[in-house]
């Protein structure tokens, strides 16, 4: 089983520092890359060129933008609820860092190895809603409030199919237990341990996307909704709510929301990779490379979808969740449970 940072560093504070440093580096680089990549993907789809000026094919454009954002004045509008307004970006941003530390990115080394990793990730995902609502309420702006309202309803609703579509994986793993042999080592297997989920897929050579295609689809759609990506970007629907919950934010506070959005995308894609695409499993190339490659392919798919479809209306979004995704995922879960019991 992989070694954690605690195993490597020995000292918990040192491990914590190294973990946060590592996660922050990865997330920052990811944000810088994703913004550039998103602009490039949209440009390709729309037959434009995208950023071309700063650096080779505009690669340094986001760096320049980030510097610009850092240099901008932080405007605090009159009439905002100051504590909430100031705290909100941090509340959106902090759970992202915590969630990112749970993902097993390689076979040998991980940041943490917790038996309830899956639950924790969903929990941190749920935290972000509080930050978004604080932003919406604290801004004292009707567009922001509408955006926040939509966001809460959407995120809470879509957590259900998200979890329901992850459950069959937990069942599949648990069905292999209680003890399972991985590379000659017997371990007490746990369906909610992300490292175990990856390890089982690598060991059997069957990625769960083959066993659970419906769950994969539902999970992916739910991830889109959870990360407020088009066609589910109604909390920040540009053409309706100007910018939704972050309408009143400027400078680096706005930057933090952006940061959180792209980090959420990465975490969602990584989680999907772990659950359905075998995580770091793959031939020739080292594990982490495969891990990030798969995650970025999923991110590319998310961008592709965003730049193809129009946006759903709020009530349609909810109908889609409660009328299609949740029943489907429940049926899928029951069928999986039944088949596991029978086979």
């Amino acid at each position, binding site marked *: 089983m992989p070694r954690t940072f605690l195993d490597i560093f020995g000292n918990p504070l040192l491990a914590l520092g190294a973990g946060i440093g590592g996660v922050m580096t990865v997330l920052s680089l990811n944000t810088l890359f994703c913004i550039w990549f998103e602009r490039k993907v949209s*440009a*390709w*789809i*729309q*037959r*434009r*060129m995208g950023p*071309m000026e700063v650096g080779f094919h505009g690669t340094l454009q986001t760096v320049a933008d980030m510097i610009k954002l850092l240099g901008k004045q932080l405007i605090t509008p009159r009439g905002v609820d100051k504590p909430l307004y100031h705290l909100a970006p941090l509340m959106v941003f902090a759970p992202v860092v915590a969630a990112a530390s749970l993902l097993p990115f390689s076979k040998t080394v991980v940041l943490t190895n917790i038996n309830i990793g899956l639950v924790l990730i969903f929990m941190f995902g749920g935290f972000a809603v509080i930050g978004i609502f604080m932003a919406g309420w604290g801004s004292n702006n009707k567009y922001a409030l509408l955006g926040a309202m939509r966001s809460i309803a959407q995120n809470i609703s879509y957590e259900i199919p998200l979890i329901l579509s992850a459950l069959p994986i937990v069942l599949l793993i648990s069905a292999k237990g209680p003890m399972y042999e991985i590379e000659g080592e017997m371990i007490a297997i746990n369906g909610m341990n992300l490292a175990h989920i990856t390890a089982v897929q690598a060991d059997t050579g069957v990625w769960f996307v083959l066993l659970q295609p419906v769950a994969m689809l539902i999970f992916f759609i739910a991830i889109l909704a959870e990360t407020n990506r088009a066609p589910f970007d109604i909390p920040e629907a540009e053409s309706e709510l100007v910018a939704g919950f972050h309408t009143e934010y400027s400078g680096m506070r706005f930057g933090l929301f952006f940061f959180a959005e792209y980090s959420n995308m990465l975490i969602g894609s990584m989680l999907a990779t772990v659950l359905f695409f075998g995580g770091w499993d793959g031939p020739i190339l080292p594990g982490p490379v495969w891990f990030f490659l798969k995650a970025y392919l999923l991110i590319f798919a998310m961008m*592709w*979808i965003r*730049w*193809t*479809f129009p946006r759903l209306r709020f009530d349609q979004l909810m109908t889609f969740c409660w009328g*299609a995704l949740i029943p489907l995922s429940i049926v899928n879960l029951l069928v999986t449970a039944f088949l596991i019991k029978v086979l």
Partner: protein
Amino acid sequence: MSYFTTIAGGLKSLVTGLGITARQMRRKPVTLTYPHVKPELSEAYRSLISLVQFEELETHDCIACMQCVKICPSFCIEIDGGRVEGIKRMRASKFEVDFALCSMCGLCIDVCPTDTLEYTKLYDEAGYEREWVYDLLDPFRDFEDEFVERQRVSDAREAAEKAAKRAAAAEAKAATEKEPEVDP
């Protein structure tokens, strides 16, 4: 059952959409990186106006007839001018256009009797003040005296020729008129 067919149909339409954008993704961009690559302006492009330099005159041919001043919907043209000592042609002495007001409608060019107005190809000019006045005669000032001199000479020659012709005609006429007298 219709529940599932609806979902399937919807999914199919979404996949079709993704296919279309994927096909577009493989094509070349249609945009230009503007300051580096400049689009070609069309021949007829309407921009700021200027005076034509006629080859045979070596200068403009504005005769200060005020047609453009009268027709300009933005009231942005101001012309001074009139008769110059010694030549027949009327000449403009001031042709000021306030381009901050000009809307490039082209009425002045249509109305010009001597066709001495034309569009330039300046597409990125901007005024920085409320009044952005150019005197279109400025590029021609140096030629003006020369032109007037030349014109005076040619006018004089023309006048002389005309006078000669007239004299000849008068003579001929006189001759024809005289003839009957001579004849009998």
